[in-house]
């Protein structure tokens, strides 16, 4: 039981490190460049901004869910 718990915790720690690296890269590559464009859109075209905002958050959710699921499968097998 203890061995199983240690294995799960180690897999989770690796998952967090890989995920953190991906997220930091995402901050610098995507969000940093999106900032000014989104600000201009929010100021000039409020309705378009509202639609883009929802698409962005749902899109990110789908991508991150796939990434975390992939990481879970890779590190813990298909038992989850």
């Amino acid at each position: 039981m203890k061995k199983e718990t240690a294995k799960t915790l180690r897999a989770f720690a690796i998952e967090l490190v890989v995920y953190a690296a991906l997220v930091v890269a995402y901050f610098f590559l995507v969000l940093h460049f999106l900032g000014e464009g989104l600000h201009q859109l929010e100021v000039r075209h409020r309705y378009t901004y509202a639609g883009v905002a929802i698409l962005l958050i749902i899109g990110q959710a789908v991508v991150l869910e796939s990434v975390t699921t992939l990481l879970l499968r890779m590190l813990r097998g298909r038992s989850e």
Partner: protein
Amino acid sequence: MFFPISGAHISPMYLMVTGFLIGVLGGFFGVGGSFIAGPALRAMGLDWNFAVGTDLAHIVGKSVVAAKRHRALGNVDLRLGLIMALGTIGGAEVGAQLIQMLKRAGNVNLVVSIVSIAVYLSISTFMIWESRKTLALRKPMPRGLVKGATAKQDQSAFMHVTRDIQRLKIWPIIKLPTSGVTISLWIILLVAFVGGLFSGFLGGGAGYIRMPSMVYVLGVPTHLAVGTDLFEIIISASYGTFTHAIKGNVDILIALVMHTGAAIGAQIGAISTQYFTGPKIRLAFVPLPLIGAAIVIYTLMTGHKV
């Protein structure tokens, strides 16, 4: 990190950790977690209007992740979620109108505070009583992993009242095979409307009312109530995000950063539900409305928003 839309400087690490904690709570209990996210954003100097709107956007993303995971575990009733979304949106509009009326009367803060404290304390008291009574029953409870069909073997000490509600034959009657419930459409809409009303009136997604209502009034098993509530929140919070965004209350960049933490937290929360039976999830839920009540009491006593 500078966020040009709201003009705020906030540490992305702070946003990610806050998102992670709210994600775990959301995935496990099916709540939006706005009673934590709102004050957490406010504490970083964000105006309340931005805190509310941005929190809603982040809730959309977190609910997508948690609902997808719950769907994989067989915990989402899509039909029920879609019906409830209609009632929630209607209720939220009426709740927002009530707020406007109270604003004009000049006593919005006091009335909303007292109503929210009463609601939070009532929910916690009832859920402590019910879940402890259910856990004390000597009937065999499901053991090990609790998902899919096993999750439907949920028990509740309040089941006799739920069955009486299900026996009300008010046309049209809806069959929900995923949840194993047959009930009048109007009762589903009423439950969703009340949830939406509190959402519009007290702010946030009002999962603290909707999730228990789905269990006790509609008779939906707890695991399915959590998953379906999250699916329903995607629709109602998207609507809320859109209306707040056109009013200039959403900084989507803050929501996107917060969501990177919430995405992994929501997965952990959702997976964790497999290891607990319905009454245990309901008992663990009890502190959430109490935290909400404590925040409101603190605000009332000090005159400061947390």
